[in-house]
């Protein structure tokens, strides 16, 4: 029996779903074709010279099977069957390959669009800060001049305060949109290092939550044996800035507070406000983007802050919970374990 006609070779070839040809390399005659090749290219294939000129071990055959013209791309490589050399060519319909190529192209395009979008948002939010800074400084200058000239009165003071306040609101929105766009486009690099949460709180309290006009301050209490927590410092400060900022926003009559408690295996941070509270029906949706409590009329916010907070807490393998009572206040509880499990 010819080596190519053994049951083993037949079985093997017909088990392959792609068209396969075995070619005599010296005469370039197709010695054998599997069932898939015959179905697609016809049975006149075998025993006849190959109707193509292989180039770089690949060639294309055209089939007219099923009344539809189809090109099949073959890649060949040298094999030995029972010590005799052959070319083994495996084909793939171009249609399919073409579809894959298109799909790849589409994916690449999508990725570059995503990148473009992220870059665009990053660039524009950076560019927006420049005029915002110029406006903020001009407002500061007006205020300083009015004060120097002794012309500052309650009317000027109130309205200048409003402009200034809104400038920083706009800036916060820019920050949130930028952060969310980075999250959505998967552009956030996580850099977890051992962080002393006490230092982050101290820094935030000094940088953002001190010397307030209304003289409210952040009450901080720390208990337990301090330990470092593995977290991304940038994200951790964004988490706390947001929660503390919210607490100041809602805890209008009383100082908001933060309690940091070091347990044996975990560290628990609780941020308290003594404000309007969150209606029970809103709680399940609280961490969704753009969702805002039904009782926040007139209190500014984008509804993005808590969505970002939750994402960051989870990226750092922490847990966030909320408990609230209407007209009493709200508590956000974040838990980080010292070691990953």
């Amino acid at each position, binding site marked *: 029996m010819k080596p190519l006609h053994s049951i083993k070779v037949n079985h093997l070839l017909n088990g392959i779903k792609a068209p396969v040809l075995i070619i005599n390399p010296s005469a370039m005659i197709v010695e054998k074709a599997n069932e898939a090749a015959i179905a697609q290219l016809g049975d006149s294939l075998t025993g006849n010279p190959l109707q193509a000129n292989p180039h770089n071990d690949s060639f294309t055959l055209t089939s007219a099977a099923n009344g539809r013209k189809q090109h099949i791309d073959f890649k060949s490589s040298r094999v030995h069957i029972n010590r005799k050399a052959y070319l083994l060519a495996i084909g793939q319909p171009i249609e399919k390959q073409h579809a894959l190529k298109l799909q790849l192209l589409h994916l690449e395009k999508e990725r570059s669009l995503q990148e473009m979008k992220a870059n665009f948002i990053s660039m524009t939010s*950076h560019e927006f*800060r*420049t*005029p*915002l*800074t*110029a*406006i*903020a*400084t*001009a407002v*500061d*200058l007006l205020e*300083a*001049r009015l004060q*120097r000239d002794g012309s500052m009165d309650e009317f000027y003071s109130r309205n200048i305060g409003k402009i*200034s306040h809104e*400038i*920083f609101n706009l*800036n916060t929105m820019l*920050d949130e949109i930028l952060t969310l766009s980075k999250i959505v486009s998967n552009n956030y690099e996580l850099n977890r290092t051992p962080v002393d949460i006490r230092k982050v709180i101290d820094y935030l309290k000094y940088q953002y939550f001190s*010397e307030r006009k209304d003289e409210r301050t952040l009450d901080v209490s720390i208990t337990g044996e301090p330990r470092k927590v593995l977290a991304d*410092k*940038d994200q951790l*400060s964004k988490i706390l800035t947001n929660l503390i900022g919210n607490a100041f926003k809602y805890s209008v009559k009383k100082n908001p507070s933060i309690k940091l408690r070091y347990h044996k295996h975990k560290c628990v941070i609780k941020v308290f406000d003594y404000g309007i509270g969150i209606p029970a029906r809103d709680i399940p949706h609280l961490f969704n983007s753009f969702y805002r409590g039904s009782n926040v009329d007139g209190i500014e916010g984008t509804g993005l802050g808590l969505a970002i907070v939750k994402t960051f807490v989870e990226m750092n393998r922490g847990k966030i919970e909320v408990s609230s009572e209407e007209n009493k206040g709200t508590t956000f509880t974040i838990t980080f374990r010292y070691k990953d499990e």
Partner: protein
Amino acid sequence: MNSTILLIEDKTSLSDTLKTLLELHEYNVLLAENGEDGVRQARLSLPQLVISDIYMPVMNGYELLEIFRKDSTLRHIPVLMLTAKTGIEEINKAMKNGAAGYVTKPFLFKNLHATIRKILI
């Protein structure tokens, strides 16, 4: 004697206003529009403090910091960075390159002023 501050910022709408504001607080203020101009002016006038933007044409704030660090006449002048970038990487990069401090844009003048006073003590 009043301290001299060299303000390096390419956006004149900001630098003009900030100059007037600083002058209201009794500082002498010199202006430069980019890092290169800033280095030239710093060598001429040896200010007590440089306030510099990071992203500017011709020479950016990081390059400016590097020149200040390597130049024995400029090395002792503190450079305070004003940056619209709020990412911790940019801030770390500036601090590692020898910045005396940073303030993120937009800022409240009272915060900038508090930082200036802290550096000039």
